[in-house]
């Protein structure tokens, strides 16, 4: 083997490259620290200020008058549960069936492409614009705010999530499963519902859970649809108390009792959303592994 020409080792260049690397990685580490610290700080403040407000009264008493001590968020919690509950009942079947259409029937048709595009937009559209639409549709027309309008606004936000997840899940089902069902003589609808959908049940439930988590935290669409109600009410046809709007009003007020309750409400929402997200992951992962 002949000797290869030796190029002199450029220690200067090597040093510079090393230093650049260290600086770059240090910067990236710093940004991780800043980003994660900032987010941890938020959760920490939430825990400190909010968790202490979550006592029995918080869950059992209604919102107090301004400047009155005591009270809780019972009406807001129940109101949110009802509004989100009904929105889930509305959006789940619509979302799943629309997802089935896109995946099983529409496929690549122009209509299906248009619908997918619309779903994409609605997924990231500002939720306050949805609130405007529902106001014009369901509040101005009947001339009063209502829990129903709030549910309608929230379901418009949840439907795209469910559609997208259902469609993605259904696409994962192997064609052989469908064909086997058809070969046994099942009608189309039975294959879709009892075989294909059932196969991805876990994933679809995950999608619904994520949609619920999203709805719970949404404030803007409820601002001018469900408005607010300082008393305990289960009448969906009238303004309804709900956690996000109450938190917003209380946090912007000067009353310390109200501000404490606002923190408690925020902590509760964060807890619920994080729990649902974790649950959805666990469910999904177990379904995938199974």
């Amino acid at each position, binding site marked *: 083997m002949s000797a290869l020409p030796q190029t002199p080792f450029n220690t200067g260049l090597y040093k510079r490259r090393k230093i650049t690397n260290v600086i770059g990685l240090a910067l990236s580490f710093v940004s991780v620290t800043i980003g994660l610290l900032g987010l941890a700080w938020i959760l920490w403040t939430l825990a400190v200020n909010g968790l202490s407000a979550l006592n029995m009264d918080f869950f059992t008493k209604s919102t107090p008058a301004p400047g009155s001590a005591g009270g809780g968020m019972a009406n807001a919690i129940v109101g949110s549960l009802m509004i989100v509950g009904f929105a889930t009942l509305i959006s789940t079947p619509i979302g799943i069936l629309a997802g089935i259409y896109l995946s099983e029937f529409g496929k690549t048709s122009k209509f299906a492409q248009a619908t997918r595009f619309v779903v994409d937009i609605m997924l990231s559209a500002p939720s306050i*614009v949805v609130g405007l639409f529902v106001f014009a549709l369901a509040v101005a027309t009947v001339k009063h705010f209502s829990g129903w309008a709030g549910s309608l606004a929230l379901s418009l936000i949840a439907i795209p999530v469910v559609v997208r997840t259902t469609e993605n899940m259904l696409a994962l089902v192997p064609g052989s499963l469908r064909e086997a069902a058809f070969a046994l003589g099942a009608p189309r609808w039975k294959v879709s519902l009892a075989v294909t959908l059932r196969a991805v049940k876990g994933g679809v439930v995950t999608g619904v859970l994520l949609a619920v988590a999203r709805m719970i935290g949404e404030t803007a669409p409820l601002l001018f649809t469900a408005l607010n109600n300082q008393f305990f009410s289960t009448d969906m046809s009238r303004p309804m108390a709900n956690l996000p709007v109450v938190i917003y009003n209380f946090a912007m007020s000067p009353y310390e009792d109200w501000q404490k309750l606002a923190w408690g409400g925020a902590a509760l929402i964060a807890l619920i959303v994080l729990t649902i997200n974790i649950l959805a992951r666990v469910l999904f992962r177990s379904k995938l592994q199974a």
Partner: protein
Amino acid sequence: MSANASTPVAQTMTTSTGATRQSAADQARLAAKVATFSSQDRWFERVTFLFAALVLLAMVGILASLLKEAAPALSKFGLGGFLTGTTWSPSDDVYGAVIAIFGTLITSAIAMLFAVPISFGIAIFLTETCPAVLRRPLGTAIELLAGVPSIIYGIWGLFVLAPLLQQYVQPLLIKTGLPIFAGPPLGIGIFTAGIVLALMVIPFTASVMRDVFETVPAVLKESAYGIGCTTWEVMKNVVLPYTRVGVIGGIMLGLGRALGETMAVTFVIGNANRLSPSLFAPGNSIASTLANEFAEADPALHVPSLFALGLILFFITVVVLMAAKWLTARGTRKAGI
């Protein structure tokens, strides 16, 4: 596989023992069953089509109602006049969108200015330098944080960040004398809103960037490492160029979210319908104007003008989203090497 009609029920054909004929009654029953299945399937398709159409209809409805409600304002001021009007005055019933659009764009710009480098850093860390055992939990933590509702960020911004900025950061920056840092230290204002938005956008953009970075084929990175590149050089010269389009798409998705964000901004933006060169001044974004003024809008053109603002916001976010989609689609198409 048949496209729409159901396949017939399995018929009892000739069995191994021999003669089994379809009686007329059997055949009739079979035909009836096939017909039922066919009609059931047609109905099923119709129903699912209806629901899919409902989704499409909802979007059309949103657009139509925004246009209809905004019409009186747009016809009074003209689209150009409304877009360039710098007065937003309910007391004079004169409205122009510049203040709100400016607030939206500036707060989003500040947010992206802080969020993009930090998200980059997080994504780089998660894909390259993070010890393997921490990778999953950290990644999951970031994704979970992306789901935290914006009202949480807003309330934290109001009670924690604003007083801190007012006491420590703003006086320092005001001393520099720069016009963008002029004015009394209020704590709330456009700058604070931008920072809160940045914190909100970071988990989201960091996850997207991390996902995009993970699509880089290992062979590309390994070959770069193999010839002696440092980690930083691999990121800069291999990963980033490869994922450039996807990264930009991710940034634009984050931007789209920042533009439309309501609650994180409304708490701390200060609610002032005034233009000011200083970042420490209070202002208004489109979403915060809507949140603050809609329920109480009184004079004749106020509500239509608010709807017109909503229309503008919708349009801005749709354009940004479409651009992001197009870019990310191009990015994934290039994925195969």
